[in-house]
């Protein structure tokens, strides 16, 4: 994310000074949020008619900051899971890969997100390796526990860590893929319980 240097010459000199100052102290997501005039840290409360733009701040599987605000004006699908999930997550990711493949180039008009609710184990590198087995358009997201919790809160994507005897743990989480329109409204869900045709149809409706 560029800071002061990215600001175009259309803005005045004083604005550029302010931006440089901001850039020095705030993270890139806050910069975008400030630019768009949205206060950061407020979860996207799509179901209760909340913010019209997603505001989570996470890190993608390439290690780059990913700001929810970057999704403004784009439909997206978001799914919460973790790479130590043997069943639902690989199945849902494969289903979404197949659905994206059915859409072909049209699938580029939506963003598909896989957010880890297990950031302790799911580093960007772990996510990158995992997602290399699925459609390249799926973006993996992780971050700190707080960042992930804030993102999940927006969809009430309930997740819990259950400690096992041997010091490991497993995660309880929502199995839905949430479908969000361009105005950040939850318009539906899909997942492994839908047929392949239905999954592709739901994604297509998002981009129409």
């Amino acid at each position, binding site marked *: 994310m560029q800071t002061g240097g990215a600001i175009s010459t259309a803005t005045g000199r004083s604005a550029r000074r302010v931006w440089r100052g901001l850039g020095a102290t705030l993270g890139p997501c806050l910069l975008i949020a400030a630019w768009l005039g949205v206060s950061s840290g407020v979860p996207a409360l799509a179901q209760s008619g909340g913010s019209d733009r997603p505001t989570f701040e996470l890190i993608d599987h390439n290690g780059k900051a990913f700001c929810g605000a970057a999704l403004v004006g784009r439909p997206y699908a978001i799914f919460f899971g973790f790479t130590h999930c043997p069943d639902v997550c690989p199945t849902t990711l494969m289903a979404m890969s*197949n659905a994206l493949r059915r859409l072909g180039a049209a699938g580029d008009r939506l963003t598909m997100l896989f957010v880890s609710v297990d950031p302790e184990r799911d580093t960007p590198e772990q996510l990158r390796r995992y997602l290399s087995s699925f459609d390249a358009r799926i973006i993996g997201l992780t971050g700190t526990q707080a960042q992930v919790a804030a993102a999940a809160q927006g969809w009430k994507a309930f997740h819990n860590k259950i400690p096992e005897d041997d010091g490991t743990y497993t995660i309880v989480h929502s199995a839905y893929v949430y479908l969000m329109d361009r105005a950040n409204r939850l318009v539906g869900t899909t997942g492994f319980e839908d047929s392949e045709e239905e999954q592709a149809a739901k994604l297509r409706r998002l981009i129409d």
Partner: protein
Amino acid sequence: MKAITLVLVAATAASSPTLPLSLCAAMRLGSPPRAVAVALAETAADKSYKVGLLVIEAPWTRATPGGAEVGGAYLKITNTGAEPDRLLGGTLPIAAAVEVHAMSVTDGVMKMRKLETGLEIKPGQTVELKPGGYHLMFTGLRQALQQGQPIKGTLQFEKAGSVEVEYRVEPIGAPSREGAKKERHMH
């Protein structure tokens, strides 16, 4: 005639999960068999094993995504005896452990838990471990499971003891053993 029937049955068994319907369709259309003769009793998909009075059918698992350290495995167990038994887990050379887990999805929330005392199979009962329900969990995988490359492991039962089985490896995220055959997959 018998030989042709055998071949046709095997071919349709290989191509569709609903054997009787496909057999009739194949015969009606007169379509040539897609596969050469395969042993009826045991296709690659349907290995079965006996240990004590337990019958274990069709163990299968899925290829694992890159870097995945866990995998799920599924099978059917029938207790033909008069005493209950329990599936405790097993071993797999490339995994640190093989555990038994229960999974349920309620109102869209997925819950998974390890069954510390294993899974009971009552006399006369058939228990099916399948996606979305009970499964074996391979943990600490040291290498990826590859589609089409079966792997051997053991199952451990409380009374019947240990038995070696071979798992067929379906594609990543295959929704079911049969469903894997119907879908096109990413590679």
